[in-house]
């Protein structure tokens, strides 16, 4: 490696064989002239990357910084030398040309911190730069500043408890990034309601307390996913009952409930006295997840859905607002289907029905081409074509366990990150579908594991990840172990 191998240099040493290689890329900026290069077989990623930088004249002499490249051969990232790849895959066939695709390298994620929560983390959102929105089965939503995450004891900016102690399953920011005051955020829970909270601002010195503004009723089963529109006024929630409920939040705070409150107890002959007494009992008791199913707080204004999108059989796993068309929503369900909905009309526009056992747990969309990616219970990540229906599932990425959460890179059309039940965060390049670019799991310290086996609520800690988010810079993932890992991960 000491001597810089020159591009197109013919083999100086007799031992080094040369392989015919066709280098190409899908990126317009990094393209080099199409030709077949004879390259020493011993070259690795680094030398090839140097070669392309030379060709692109990305050299310090030219004032440009060299860009690291990754090389994909037959959908597989080149890890060793070309020689070893040929030996492994071609059986020493040195004659035939090798098509090598190069992409700008994605740096491996680097863990920068972790946040400990008292119960399972169920939802994460990086919707606002610098802050993590987190929902947990402790039945609260927290807003954490990312800057404090690196410290050992990050204190939440806001902790918003849900009215019941059954647990929150998902959370999202509703207000757009531009809105800095009276920010709306929503959390869905096992209690079948979406709770919309308002926080005055994200500045730490705000005085007015956050509160629950709305309770969105209408679902008959726990909420699985919520998304807010770009306008910050519309909200769609998906539930286990197979429906998508469309809510429009009023600009002005209403003064009356749209429906009556759900009965707290169904037992005959029970009056308010009883309930009040119960509530009083509960107040005395510490929050214990399952000791009661009753309301612990007052709750917001109760609202009913403005539209119900019906179609899924069984649970709806995930929802994503179409990143190109704001009037469209995609949902993926446990019935193995991916559906596109026109929000305004409530019409089911597109129906892609996959195998019935391909239960989708989550869905996200690539901004660039609108391809949907779903994480499935059958241990795959599937890419669904949304535009032309020539193929149902265009690509399947095999994983080792179900994928409860998936996030596509906000800009790149090839990179996506997934969290899995095996506790691994993986970053994939869909051009290399055989295995992930990176697989990282939280570095478990033995001592911490010894001390924390069971959460305060008596829930056994496992390695499962349940939620993750990625904004292209920061990747957060959390789950059963009650910890949110934070990584710096750039993926182009």
């Amino acid at each position: 490696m000491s001597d810089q191998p020159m591009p197109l240099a013919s083999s100086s040493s007799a031992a080094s064989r040369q392989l015919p290689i066709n280098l190409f890329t899908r990126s317009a900026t990094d393209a080099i002239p199409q030709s077949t290069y004879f390259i020493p077989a011993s070259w690795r990623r680094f030398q090839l990357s140097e070669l392309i930088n030379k060709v692109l004249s990305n050299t310090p002499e030219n004032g440009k910084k060299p860009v690291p490249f990754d090389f994909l051969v037959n959908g597989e990232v080149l890890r060793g030398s070309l020689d070893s790849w040929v030996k492994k895959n071609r059986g020493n066939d040195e004659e035939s040309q090798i098509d090598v695709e190069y992409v700008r390298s994605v740096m491996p994620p680097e863990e920068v911190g972790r946040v400990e929560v008292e119960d399972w983390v169920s939802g994460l959102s990086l919707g606002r730069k610098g802050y993590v929105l987190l929902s947990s089965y402790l039945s609260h939503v927290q807003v954490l500043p990312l800057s404090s995450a690196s410290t050992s004891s990050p204190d939440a900016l806001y902790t918003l408890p849900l009215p019941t102690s059954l647990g929150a399953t998902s959370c999202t920011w509703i207000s757009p990034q531009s809105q800095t005051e009276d920010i709306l955020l929503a959390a869905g829970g096992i209690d079948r309601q979406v709770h919309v909270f308002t926080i005055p601002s994200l500045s730490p010195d705000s005085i007015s307390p956050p509160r629950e503004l709305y309770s969105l009723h209408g679902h008959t089963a726990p909420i699985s996913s919520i998304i807010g529109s770009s306008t910050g006024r519309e909200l769609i929630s998906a539930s286990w009952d197979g429906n998508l409920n469309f809510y429009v939040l009023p600009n002005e705070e209403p003064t009356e409930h749209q429906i009556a409150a759900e009965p707290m107890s169904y037992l005959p002959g029970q009056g308010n006295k009883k309930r009040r007494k119960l509530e009083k009992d509960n107040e005395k008791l510490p929050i214990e997840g399952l000791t009661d199913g009753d309301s612990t707080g007052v709750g917001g204004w109760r609202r009913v859905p403005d539209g119900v999108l019906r179609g899924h059989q069984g649970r709806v796993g995930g929802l994503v607002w179409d990143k190109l068309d704001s009037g469209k929503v995609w949902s993926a369900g446990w019935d193995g289907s991916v559906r596109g909905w026109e929000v305004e009309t409530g019409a089911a526009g597109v129906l892609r029905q996959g195998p019935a056992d391909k239960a989708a747990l989550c869905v996200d969309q690539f901004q660039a081409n609108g391809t949907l990616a779903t994480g499935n219970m059958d241990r795959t990540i599937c890419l669904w074509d949304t535009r032309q229906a020539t193929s149902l599932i265009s690509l399947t990425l095999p994983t080792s366990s179900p994928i409860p959460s998936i996030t596509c890179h906000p800009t790149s059309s090839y990179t996506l990150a997934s969290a899995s039940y095996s506790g691994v965060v993986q970053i994939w390049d869909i051009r290399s579908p055989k295995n992930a670019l990176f697989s990282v799991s939280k570095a478990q310290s033995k001592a911490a594991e010894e001390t924390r086996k069971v959460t305060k609520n008596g829930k056994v800690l496992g390695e499962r990840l349940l939620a993750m988010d990625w904004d292209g810079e920061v990747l957060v993932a959390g789950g059963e172990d009650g910890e949110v890992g934070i990584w710096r991960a750039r993926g182009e």
Partner: protein
Amino acid sequence: MAPRNAAASSSKPSASARPATNGHAGPSRATTAPSKTKKRAVEEVSVEEDDEDEFGAGGSGIDMSDDEEMGSVDGADEDDEDAFPEFDSEIEDQGPEGDDEDEGDSTDEEYEEDNDEEDSGSESGYNSSDIDAMYESSNTSAPTSPSSSHKNLTTDEKLSKLIAKNSIKPNEAIGTDAKISKAKEGEGRMVKSKLVDGGYKREYEDYEAGYGSESSTEDNPNTVGNIPMEWYDDLPHIGYDVNGRKIFRPAQGDELDKFLANVEDPGAWTSAEDKMLQQQVQLTDKELDIIRRLERAEIPDADYDPYQPTVEWFTGEGNERVMPLSAAPEPKSRFVPSKWEHKKIMKIVKAIREGRITPNKPSAAKPKVYAIWSDADQANAPHAMYMPAPQLPPPKTIESYNPPEEYVPTEEEKAEWEATDKEDRKTEFLPAKYDALRLVPGYKNLVQEKFERCLDLYLAPRTRRVKLNIDPESLIPKLPAPKELKPFPIACSVQYRHPGDTRVRAVSTSPDGQWVASGSEDGVVRLWDLGNGREVWRWDLHSGPIQFVEWSPYKEESLLVALVEGKVAVLSPLALVAPNVAAATLTHVNTAFASSAATTKIGAGKDVKGVEAIKWVRPAERERERGVLVYVEVPGTPKQVSWHRKGDYFATVATDASNKSVLIHQLSRHATQSPFRKTPGQVQRVAFHPSKPHFFAATQRYIRLYDLAGQKLLKTLQSGVKWISSLDVHAGGDNLIVGSYDKKLAWFDMDLSTKPYKTLRYHNRALRSVAYHPTLPLFASSSDDGTIHIFHCTIYSDLMQNPLIVPLKILRGHKVTDGLGVLDIRWVPGKPWLVSSGADGEVRLWCS
């Protein structure tokens, strides 16, 4: 020669007794004229003397006209003791012949006959000159020739002897007058008895026994037997008489003689050649008569009367037999089909089935040309029962005449070998080293070894081991590959983690497939999110291990039943379900409380004895808040619950509650019935029929199907297992699977039989749970060996087609703790997913 004389002399009386036996003598006797005979005899003697002069010893051509003479002449040739046999016989037998000739119109046919025979002799290779030469040589060698002794007797002497012999004939008296003892006649002489002291016994003269005349050997002095006479063609004699003397070939004339004889002799055409004696024999009238009869296709025996009157021995009037001839009972073989014949036939049938015998097989055409030395087409293929002898092992190095040094025994080894007994020796021989093969001495044990080998082969029974030449692959039924039968559970996707090491005895999935309920031994019923394994609700029943948990299949309500010792708890996750579902559930369960003032309700089925002990108890308010709706107090420890599909009835089984082991509870009325007044055995499991008002109750070995409406037993299925542990009924209702503690799984097709359609044994330990998928063609079984086996099962609507069962997958992951493995399994409705609970405290979801 004495016996022969006696035979000849006795021929007459015996012939008279049995005329048919002596063909020559019989018919002739009727016309015999004694005087004539004697005269002829004298003539012949003189003729013979002439002949003898001419021919020497062998010239007895005339005499050969009769069979007896041949032997007599030969005997006379060499025996001097008895000089006259020929006359003897000649007179007796020639006489008749002469009579024949008389009948046949000629008196001097003797010579012609003689010539005749000489001709035939020459035909068969000898002429008189040859014989002359031969006899001359014999004469020279034997100076005392028989012919010379013969010549010493004169005709008178011969005659007198003949007369003397005939005069003492005893024959006529014997057997006819029954005068057997001659004691009274005073014959014989008295001699002292050796046995009785002072006693006397009478001794008689020996007399010649008259046997032989009717013997068939009498006719034919030649003793060579029934052989092709041409064997003697090259020899001067044609056989041997009884004394072993050669019978020489009679002189035979040439063709011309024969022809002349034929022409001259009018009886020639009624003569035939006697092969044994090689001479022409004149056929008797009787023989001619037989020939004539044969020609006319009549019965040859002239005496046979085909139209004899019937003698009715056992039939007809007065002859009827009342009793059977024998008192022996009728033998079995008369009416029992023969076992041995059956065996023989079955042997053939077996051979035909095995292909050893092919009936109506066209015989294989032999190739016209084949390679003689080729081993390939063995001329003699070993037959079906051919059993080659086992091969001896090939010789080893130690048996070499020049073995390597290490094989050659040292002196000590040799001594030791010599010292040990023959049976104890490790080797039969001492290896020895020779420089060349030619120096190797003979092996002295060779004969012994060969003998022992032969003995082994002879004594050892050999059996032919029939090698089953079946391709094992072909025995496996053709099943679709598991890959084609996807989806089915493959891997563990979600774990529902229970705190501590508590055993999870029961697990159940809600009918909408969203929740998993588990009952563990710490007495807590937990409710889990199916998708991510989050425990979202729990009921602590505080009454010992949870034995069983089962969701109500009714989707409009959300109910589950948990069993603990002495109690059935009806639970509902009220906070987790939609308000309308919760309300419906509560209404359903609580209506009966409203109708009754008391918080406890005694079973409605009061008419059934013993159900009074069963109480429906309203739980404490706080418990009811948490969704514990009703407790049913039952005797014993209920072990299993089975819901009716409409969600109103459920049946519980408490094996230890004697006759109240099976109880059917009705939620809407809070009533409990005991369907069986008498327990049909230790009931292990119960199940409701998925569509009919039928009820399955599985005891240790039998599954009984009852009609609940008609209150009667419909069917008893015999499982063939020792102890049923689990039972599940297919949604179609016609098939059920039964798991047993003796590691077997039995599949019943109830339309087919009361016996299992298939009994599968693949688990290494006792089965704990079996489950059909409610909609997909799948079933699974779990066992104490820690595995879950997934099967595909297609049940065809065509009744003629048997269900298709394909093993798909073995799910491993549960650890075996305390000998217990996977305790309970349930399918997730609508998905090919399986939830299992294990003794290791794990509940797992297995996904496709």
